[in-house]
């Protein structure tokens, strides 16, 4: 196990270097001077030059990259051209919101995806199956930015059942920062009102972001359950007189979970892309919106910071999935 993790971490470092090189190369392609762009209409040439110098943009590309990597090794991600703050501070502010949203979306996807997948499998070719499959088809085909707009229009603007954009009502004070995730921090602070409020604020964005993953997990659960339901050990279990619940949950689900886990790993990567769109619509102050704003203003130090962080997510998610396999079925060897 340890060897496996070490191997993966070495792979991760390799990936990070590659990611940083590619993003850096991209930043060199930009036809516009980001310093001039950041300073606006009235900037004088000497101000622009001074800012270029401050940002190190007047150095040759290789020197810039070397400086960047050197700083990176010291935990310094550089300074954002747009916000004029250390990128590290920006990420610390915005990353937890995205993690919270992605986790909530994944929880939504797991609950709905697995439950509906089982329902569909058991009900094969019945009405419920058709409904679930339709839901999955739509989930894989509907643009999530439209889904978000629609949910907000219905549940916030029209029905007023759920709160609008943002992570908390305006009048609520955010809880003392521990993880940066409001739901967890408010629980840690024992503040129920804030916890409830942040949870309600999470529902619509999590449903929006999680819908695609729900669809994928539903499909995978259904087909893998169908396969499992007809295996010998299921018949044996039934023959032993176990109730259907026990048979399905204990024997069926456990065995059907391996491919579902793979799907989880794969869709986790897609969550970050989805988060960009979801955060835009729900005014969610997370990494996705930060990335969008940074890319618009050609703020490549910030874009690089975001991609580096995001590039960790996918390999780590896959590593966790592999470890998950191991626990589901210890015979699966980690390699």
């Amino acid at each position, binding site marked *: 196990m340890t060897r496996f993790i070490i191997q993966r971490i070495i792979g991760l470092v390799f990936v990070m270097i590659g990611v940083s090189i590619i993003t850096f190369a991209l930043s060199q392609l930009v*036809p*516009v*001077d980001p310093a*001039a762009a950041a*300073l*606006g*209409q*009235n*900037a*004088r040439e000497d*101000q622009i030059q001074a800012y270029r110098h401050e940002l190190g943009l007047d150095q040759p590309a290789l020197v810039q990259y070397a400086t960047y990597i050197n700083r990176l090794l010291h935990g310094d991600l550089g300074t954002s051209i*747009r*916000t*004029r*703050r250390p990128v590290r501070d*920006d990420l610390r*502010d*915005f990353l937890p919101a995205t993690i919270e949203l992605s986790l909530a979306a994944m929880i939504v996807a797991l*609950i*709905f995806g697995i*439950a509906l997948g*089982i*329902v569909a499998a*058991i*009900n094969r070719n019945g009405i*419920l199956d058709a409904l679930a499959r339709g839901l999955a088809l739509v989930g894989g085909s509907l643009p999530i930015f439209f889904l978000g707009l629609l949910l*907000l*229009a219905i549940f*916030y*603007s029209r029905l*007023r*059942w*759920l*709160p*609008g*954009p*943002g*992570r908390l*009502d*305006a*009048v609520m*004070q*955010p809880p*003392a920062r521990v993880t940066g995730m409001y739901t967890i921090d408010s629980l840690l602070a024992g503040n129920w*009102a804030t916890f409830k*409020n942040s949870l*309600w604020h999470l529902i619509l964005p999590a449903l929006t972001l999680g819908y695609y993953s729900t669809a994928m997990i539903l499909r995978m659960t259904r087909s893998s359950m169908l396969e499992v*339901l007809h295996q010998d050990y299921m018949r044996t279990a039934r023959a032993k007189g176990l*109730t*259907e*619940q026990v048979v*399905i949950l204990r024997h069926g689900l456990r065995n059907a979970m391996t491919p579902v886990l793979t799907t989880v790993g794969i869709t986790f990567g897609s969550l970050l892309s989805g988060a960009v769109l979801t955060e*835009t*619509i729900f*005014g969610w*102050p997370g990494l996705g*919106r*930060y990335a969008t*704003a940074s890319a618009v203003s*050609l703020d490549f130090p910030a874009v690089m910071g975001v991609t580096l962080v995001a590039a960790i997510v996918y390999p780590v998610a896959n590593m966790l999935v592999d470890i998950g396999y191991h626990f589901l079925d210890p015979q699966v060897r980690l390699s």
Partner: protein
Amino acid sequence: MSGPRSFAQKLLALVLLAVLAGCGSAPATNPASNANSTNANSSNTNTAAESATAAPAEGSGGAATAAPPSGGAAGGDVSPQETLVFAADLSDLISLDPAVAYEFSGIEVVGNIYQPLVTLTPGDKTIKPLLAKSWDIKTTDNGSTITFKLDEKAKFASGAPVTADDVVYSWGRIIDLNKSPAFLFTDVGGLTKDSFKAVDPQTVELTLPKTASPQVFLTVLSNSVAAIVEKKVVEANAGSDFGSTWLNDHSAGSGPYVLSSWERNTQNVLDANPNYWGTAPAMKRVIMRNITEQANLQSAVETGDADIAQDLGREQAQALEGNPDVSLVQANQTQLEYIGMNAKIAPFDKPEAREAIRYAINYDELNTLLAGTGKIVQEIIPDGFLGYTGETPFKQDIAKAKELLAKAGVADGTEIQLTIGAGIATGGLENATLAAKLQSDIEKTGLKVNIQQIQASELLNQYRAQKLQMVMLSWGPDYPDPNTNAQPFTDYNAKSIAWRNNWQNDEIAKIAADAALAPTNDQRAALYKQMTERLFHEGPYAVLYQPVRTYGVRKNVSGFQYDPATTPTIFFWTISKS
């Protein structure tokens, strides 16, 4: 196989139950403040122009009695009655340091926390005292000197008095920091750090060179950039950037509010200044909430999540019309959307060709398209500024445009490149939408228009290099005096708009320069009118419109005022809620 089926049903029921539970109990935490809506007192809301004075009243020692202690990040409890939620797109916020902030939202925040020596009040074009109770202008051989007497009652949120030392320090920081607004001091004012000094603790002396008009510079001094920070506090937290970073999360001003927190991308919380030297504001806490989607802004004010929503789109405003809880307040902004034509690139080297463009545009349909988000203006001075004439000599006349083109010898089918920026034009229409409208108008004259859309920053680069044949973009004033437009639009040597369009007319530039220095407002207005009338037909511009901003204001809010020509444009301290 009834076993698995029934299990499936149970599971489904469970999921549905979870969904219903979620929806059912939600309203508990979302008190859509219908309770407040009984009060429909619509006369409370002022439009910008008719608003009352904004300067702190004379009443001494009016410090808040129940103000929360400042600086506490957790914040004391403030009742909803005394909390104002202001929803707006604040994504342009970069800095809350008055010497650095030069974005629309930044000025809105800073202007409620810091005070300059002098001020303009909404709807009034005369400079009024604020931190300075009086000033005296002396003209000398080399220029002029303004001597300010500070108000001895004025004090910072810390309780310390505002002194000449603080003023000199604050202005010095602008020049030292040399950020976006610094040009107002160094270029417009022609100032260096030696240009101002403290004569005694209550007296500041400012020396202006001949090139700068003291009247004009007083309006510069009313800007948030010239606001005064408390030297002792800022110096104690100076760091490596004169305290600029520190001022993003703290404040050191003398205004009615102090900065309680800035949650990036989310909201800014302002709390009433407990030591405020003017009348204590009714709103003890102001929450400025960043909401970027138009539809969400509408919902926020509709549901009562927000008391005021800034910059509603036309469709949002229409949807809110007749809403018993919300009134709509419209106010002119001060930017201008215009077309620039390069006077050295054919066919626009011929004045007739430029005139033809002005006659090609269908201003009536443009007005329909703007639908209340903009007002047709054809001159370079916006409504609300001294010298605005309100004249609109141009109407679409294709025959005349064709005739002018023929006169200029421009062949049918001549191609023109119209360059526009990415994103949204002032007022909220897409640049591309607006350009498409102009394209279809201009092509009626037989010209062929190609639209090139590029990043705003790239556009500016090419525009500065005098490379663009025809450009559509907006210009915003930098200080509330017509010179802020007249000079860049007429003076080739200022290397601004006239230069970028390769257009030089020293006669018109001279009129504009004289207008800036003329002693009385009447004389100035007369000269600006002369300038405007010549610019109509000789200039390289087709001015299109001035954006109009719509606010949605809950009916229980009174004392709301907005004036884009003043700092801070929006005044939280005059607002109260019933």
